[in-house]
């Protein structure tokens, strides 16, 4: 089968990666794998079970600390050989997930979200006071020991350890979707009332789903600890929970591969851009909002739509539209990045100091995109405004083009929905009032 071939090639590629990549890149891929596993575990509850959790950092953190204790804290003897350490994270994650899941799956909808948030926050506030378990505010650190004849001293060893665990876990989660249990989880999302009438224990099912998800989140936390050999209470922070929500939805929750893809892409971009910009989190938020508003099916959904329109229309018909759409995306993206970066630089304390030193009407130059810009000159303001409006114009043209393509298509089958860039005109008809039913 074609799909299996692709997976096999991809896995082989992952195993060969350390041969081509530098140390820091191997580390980056390691982080991507961990983030992907975390997102995948999260998606078991969120995408497949239809329960939006805002507190998954708790189980990631619990797994991290459990693994750390199993590894041996502060010179203490570890209780497991290094390759099996994440099991500790997974087991403790599972047990804590059982308790937390029992509480939180008592309610559905936004109540569920708030309970998960409160549970995570509870842990976040207690953790710094429990010195023995979480090491207070300073946190704990350990040391991975050589075992089974492998030293685990280099990044490559850690990478292979992570890779094998992530492949096993993701494979398990994938095959879980085909089991009766996995099917019931889907049913939980689609119609839990009907499930209850059919005689299933919905609360127990929800708790089980939650616990399994927490287990793999804990595994991901354990892998993280093996790689960095330390942890402190900030892993319980809202920040991590937010990140996994963003990654998962940017990737797309409806398809199994979506969260994996989203987390891998966003972690990679985070790694790549964090040296270039200090505003990566802002861009991430903007990307998330754009996806939520115009492409709720995420990156995967975007490719699916591209695929459908490529099937339906020839490249010759499509190319002007695609060209315009890409130009629009580029121009709008560039003007946004320019504005944000400039604002950050102009408003920074260092620059304000420089400007004060330089005197009343002189603005020192700012270097951006390899060239000097002078605030106060016309060009400084004209560039982003011009780019923005030409971007809007290109967008408008692209939308017109798209409608022409659709009108010319006499068969009239509405197979393809509008792609991301032309989302603007859909929204008007959405504005009509839709009743605010209570959850």
């Amino acid at each position, binding site marked *: 089968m074609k799909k299996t071939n692709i997976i096999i090639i991809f896995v082989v590629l992952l195993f060969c990666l350390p041969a081509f990549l530098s140390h820091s890149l191997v580390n980056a891929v390691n982080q991507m794998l961990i983030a992907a596993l975390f997102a995948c575990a999260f998606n078991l509850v969120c995408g497949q079970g239809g329960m939006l959790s805002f507190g998954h950092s708790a189980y990631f953190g619990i797994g991290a600390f459990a693994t750390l204790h199993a590894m041996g804290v502060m010179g203490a003897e570890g209780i497991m050989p290094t390759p099996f350490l994440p099991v500790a994270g997974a087991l403790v994650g599972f047990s804590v997930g059982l308790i937390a899941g029992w509480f939180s799956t008592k309610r559905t909808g936004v109540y569920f979200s*708030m309970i998960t948030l*409160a549970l995570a926050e509870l842990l976040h*506030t207690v953790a710094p006071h429990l010195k023995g378990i979480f090491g207070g505010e300073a946190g704990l650190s350990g040391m991975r020991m050589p075992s089974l004849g492998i030293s685990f001293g280099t990044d490559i060893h850690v990478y292979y350890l992570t890779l094998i665990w992530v492949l096993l876990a993701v494979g398990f989660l994938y095959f879980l979707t085909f089991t009766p249990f996995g099917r019931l989880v889907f049913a939980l999302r689609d119609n839990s009332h009907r499930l209850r009438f059919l005689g299933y224990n919905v609360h127990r099912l929800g708790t089980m789903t939650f616990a399994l998800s927490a287990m793999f989140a804990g595994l991901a936390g354990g892998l993280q600890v093996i790689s960095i050999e330390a942890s402190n209470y900030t892993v319980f922070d809202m920040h991590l929970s937010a990140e996994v929500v963003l990654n998962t939805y940017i990737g797309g929750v409806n398809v199994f591969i979506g969260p994996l893809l989203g987390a891998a892409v966003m972690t990679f971009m985070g790694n790549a851009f964090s040296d270039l910009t200090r505003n990566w*989190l802002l861009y991430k938020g903007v990307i998330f909002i754009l996806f*939520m*508003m115009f492409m709720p099916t995420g990156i995967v959904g975007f490719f699916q739509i591209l695929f459908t329109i490529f099937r339906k229309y020839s490249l010759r018909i499509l190319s002007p539209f695609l060209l315009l759409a890409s130009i629009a995306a580029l121009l709008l993206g560039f003007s946004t990045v320019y504005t944000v970066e400039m604002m950050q630089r102009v408003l920074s304390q260092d620059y304000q100091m420089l400007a004060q030193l330089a005197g009343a009407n002189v603005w020192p130059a700012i270097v951006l995109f390899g060239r000097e810009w002078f605030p106060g000159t016309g060009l400084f303001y004209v560039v982003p405004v011009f780019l923005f409006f030409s971007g809007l114009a290109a967008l408008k043209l692209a939308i017109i083009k798209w409608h022409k393509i659709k009108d010319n298509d006499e068969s009239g089958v509405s197979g393809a929905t509008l792609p991301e860039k032309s989302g603007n005109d859909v929204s008007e008809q*959405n504005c009509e009032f839709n009743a605010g039913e209570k959850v």
Partner: protein
Amino acid sequence: MEYFTISLFNGTIYGLLLFMVSAGLTLVFGMMGVLNFAHASFYMVGAYFAYSLQKVFGFWPAIILSTLLVGVVGVFVERFFLRRVHHYGHAHELLLTFGLSYIIAELVKLFYGNYPINYRIPESLNFAAFQIFGTNYPVYRLIMGGISLAIFVLVYLLLTRTRVGIVVRSAIYKPHMVAALGHNVPLVFMSVFGVGAALAGLSGAVAGAFYITSPNMALDLGIIVFVVVVVGGLGSLEGAMIASIIIGLISSFAVGIDLSLVDVFTLFGAGEWASGIGGALALKISSLSATIPFLLMLIILLIRPSGLMGEKE
């Protein structure tokens, strides 16, 4: 006695403040079914707006202006963001507001820096209202409490005694029917969202000057506000009021109590054994003051899931 009285005052006023923020959240939820994650961000934005505006207009005009501005921001968010994703369902709206709160926090960091800013109450308001057990009680706390009380009375009267209030309450209860009777329900939603945001902005502008104004204030308060709304019962104004006061009092009393479970065991003569175990048993209540609201929420969810004043499911 001294500790008791001062904690009572501080707790009540903190509770009233919590109410001012949660009022908008619970109304919007009751009406639109949207749990607005960005609500506490409006609180933060209010404080930052007031900080910037007071340099130009002075303290009180800045507070009024920033309230209005945050209200406009709220209307904008409802009209151009929430309404567009409404047909995808409530989970989607929740995610959208979640993303917005993320962006707002990052924008605040971009404009004002990732550290607390120097937003203070003006010198003319920085005096003691009265002396209590030899310590001065700041008049500004009383002003904060007074504003919150006034808001509660105003909102309550508006909802229960006026024609607008009737439309709003019926739009919460049966939106389709209200629309069929010829009322512009989307407009009502937008206004309620705007007013809710403005209330959050007002409390931010007022409280930011007294407490700390930093990019983390939205998250710190936001989670507590969620707790208030869940404990009080989603959509219930009275419930929000009661829950705010309870949580305000609990947090202010807990800070000063130096007891732990070890002391309980000591009563039964097992104190040494308990302190030997340490860990959770030796935790002092004072260090748990941030945790107790969450415990309260879990207890409420177990024994009365719809909240103190909420309707069943």
